[in-house]
């Protein structure tokens, strides 16, 4: 099946495939862990059982998504070595310690407290349970911090020297960790994770509102999600713009590809809204352009000159079409999120937030869009980094492990089959859990033996709550 491909292409496809699957889960669990911590804190503070209902509802969903994130993440931590061993040998002295810090300060924290968060409320009491929940959320953010530092160093390496064995060696850890693109990338990604989660929560809330607009937990989660969207989407657009300017400074070639600028524009560059990049002829066909806008956005001056890909040797260019499209998909979804948030805000001020069925439908459609945007954004930045693994210093083709092509083909095929099977099933269970309203028992289980519900007094009061007659103070 993969006979005509080289080991390098196969290894790249395998990494892209496994990391793309993986990123979906952290993008969700970073946001959801924080949401759970907020829900639990609100429940402890207000003793409003709607929060506890929501906490227990999303907790089970979190457990499944987190499990999928863990197992797909273990693959990543070994794949650097199995498929990119030269990269590992060269960058290990710089990147390895950062990853070790991620394991020590984030993974153990998440894993150590996850059990208590999921199973331990009755055993440790509310306070320690809250601490465990907060620690899981903190762990997910720490993990994002370290791994984005690693990724950013690959994009904008700093603070390193090169030894006689050809390894990158650390010279200044501060510069390595806080390399030039790191603060921008971290902000952009964490906000993306929060938006992704808010979109899912909003979509699930919208679904249950369509079925029963008196559904109290659904109203609460929909309202919280809409607040989140309208607060974070503008911040995200601002952060994305700043990240883009940072990329222009450090990786101008990537921006040329994102913009589709095959040629230099000495008198101000147009913004190409849409078009079809033509790699052979080195131009964008059927382009719809806004004159001077690209210069205005990137240089804040309408007639500022901008270099194009004609200034770069062909061998140093990323694949333009992929970057061009993925960037547009991400930005388009970003503005759609802003639109949804604004719509929600408008209906809220009109007092119609829970009655606008079109808004609820729109929220459902937008539910999975955060994942699409996150993937598109990562494709933009990672494919845009090509043909390098360490930008400008180590080529992808020089990073490869000495593993024979048939071995990589076999493993790639196995990953594709297993991931679609396992994560397909997991996604199905997640959707089914989300499809069930926050109070109903999970479908598919008739005789499950595990029920704390009947044992814990907290859950018992929860079970008594009727959503219909207690709906005065939503929002």
């Amino acid at each position: 099946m993969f006979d005509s491909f080289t080991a390098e292409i196969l290894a790249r496809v395998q990494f892209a495939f496994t990391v793309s699957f993986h990123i979906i889960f952290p993008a969700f669990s970073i946001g959801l862990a924080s949401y759970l911590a907020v829900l639990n804190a609100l429940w402890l503070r207000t003793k409003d059982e709607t929060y506890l209902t929501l906490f227990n509802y999303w907790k089970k969903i979190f457990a499944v998504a987190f499990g999928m994130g863990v197992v797909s993440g273990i693959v990543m931590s070994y794949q650097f070595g199995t498929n990119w061993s030269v990269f590992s040998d060269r960058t290990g002295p710089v990147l390895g310690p950062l990853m070790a810090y991620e394991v020590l300060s984030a993974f153990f924290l998440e894993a150590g407290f996850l059990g208590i968060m999921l199973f331990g409320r009755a055993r440790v009491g509310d306070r320690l349970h809250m601490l465990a929940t907060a620690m899981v959320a903190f762990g997910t953010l720490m993990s994002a911090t370290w791994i984005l530092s690693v990724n950013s160093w690959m994009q904008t390496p700093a603070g390193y020297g090169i030894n006689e064995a050809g390894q990158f060696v650390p010279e200044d850890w501060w510069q390595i960790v806080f390399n030039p693109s790191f603060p921008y990338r971290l902000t952009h990604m964490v906000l993306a994770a929060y938006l992704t989660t808010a979109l899912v929560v909003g979509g699930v809330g919208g679904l249950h509102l369509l079925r029963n607009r008196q559904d109290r937990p659904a109203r609460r989660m929909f309202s919280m999600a809409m607040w989140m969207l309208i607060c974070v989407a503008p911040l995200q657009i601002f952060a994305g713009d700043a990240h883009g300017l940072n990329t222009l400074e450090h990786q101008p070639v990537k921006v040329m590809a994102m913009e589709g600028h095959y040629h230099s524009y000495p008198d101000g560059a147009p913004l190409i809204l849409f078009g079809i990049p033509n790699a052979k002829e080195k131009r964008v066909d059927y382009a719809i352009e806004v004159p001077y806008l690209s210069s205005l956005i990137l240089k804040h001056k309408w007639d500022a000159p901008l270099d194009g890909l004609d200034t770069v040797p062909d061998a140093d260019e990323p694949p333009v079409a992929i970057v061009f499209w993925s960037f547009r998909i991400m930005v388009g979804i970003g503005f759609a999120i802003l639109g949804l948030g604004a719509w929600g805000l408008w209906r809220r001020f009109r007092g119609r937030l829970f009655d606008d069925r079109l808004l609820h439908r729109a929220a459902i459609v937008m539910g999975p869009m955060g994942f699409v945007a996150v993937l598109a954004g990562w494709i933009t930045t990672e494919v845009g980094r090509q043909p390098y693994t360490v930008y400008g210093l180590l080529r992808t083709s020089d990073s490869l492990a000495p593993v024979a092509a048939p071995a990589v083909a076999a493993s790639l095929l196995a990953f594709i089959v297993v991931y679609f099977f396992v994560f397909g099933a997991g996604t199905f269970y997640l959707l089914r859990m989300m499809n069930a309203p926050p109070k109903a028992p999970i479908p598919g289980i008739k005789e499950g033996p595990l029920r704390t519900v009947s044992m814990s007094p907290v859950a018992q009061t929860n079970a008594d709550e009727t959503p219909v007659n207690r709906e005065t103070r939503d929002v």
Partner: protein
Amino acid sequence: MFELSFIWAGIIAFAVLTYVILDGFDLGVGILFPLAETEREKATMMNSIAPIWDGNETWLVLGGGGLFAVFPLAYAVIMPALYMPIILMLLALIFRGVAFEYRWRTERWKPVWDRAFFGGSIVAAFMQGIALGALVQGIDVADRAYAGGWWDWLSLFSILTGCAVVVGYALLGAAWLVMKTEGPLQRQMEGYARWLAMGTLGFIGIVSLLTPFQDPVYFERWFNMPGLALSVAMPGAVLAAAWALFSGLKAHKDAQPFLAALTLFGLCFIGIGISFYPHIVPPGLTIADAAAPDESLRFALVGTVVLVPMILAYTAYAYWVFRGKVDPDEGYH
């Protein structure tokens, strides 16, 4: 003053040993899973490890991530050399990891995920054993890279170590369940533990006898001082642990069989250490060859010295929270 690289070799060895005994017993529970007779017993077995398996598996990530950090050359050589067993282990861990949640989410497909839990556990254990055997046999290195083919890991010896690890993990799992359960399930596990202990001891014996012949260097290390002293002491220590294991089972002690089984694993690990030292990837790479520059080792060490004791403390706390016999009616599903 020790070299930083040797301190780090010790830390990595500690992480790997911790992984082996912690994930060893929960993989072992997975291997024994199909032997449960009722749904209630299955629930008990899985719930005995559900709150902790994720933390246990994190030590595997530390082993990989730590190797990448402080011995990048060893990481870059071992991973391609053991490509197939490692990929198969990762895929197996995916199946068993998701089974913890999935099996509670469906009635119709429950048997599928129960099989995934068992199959994933046994394949992961077998592949870890194969990886160990292949490493003991040695890895071809040339010019800072793996120089062998993609089937080099497969040999009778590595299949033997693979089987040894499966049986050994099953022993840990059975002993864990003796500690964490009661009633018929506990009795059943006591019976299994006895047989598995005999199997484990048999495998320890065979592998120990064959190891010195995998490489003349091992022979010298075991039959010259100071290794010779340990060669003499080791069988005694193994027998003492075995006695503690069997007598604990006979007296229906809760914790003693499990602790004795852990001791057995610890002793085997020391044995492997004696064979390897001072190499990290036999026969060519020593600990010093593979180490990252001191600047990397120092930076990573600071965090490790601060964080690992904290990790051990809250991990111990998590075990303490879920101490005692498993109540199959407790859980959140």
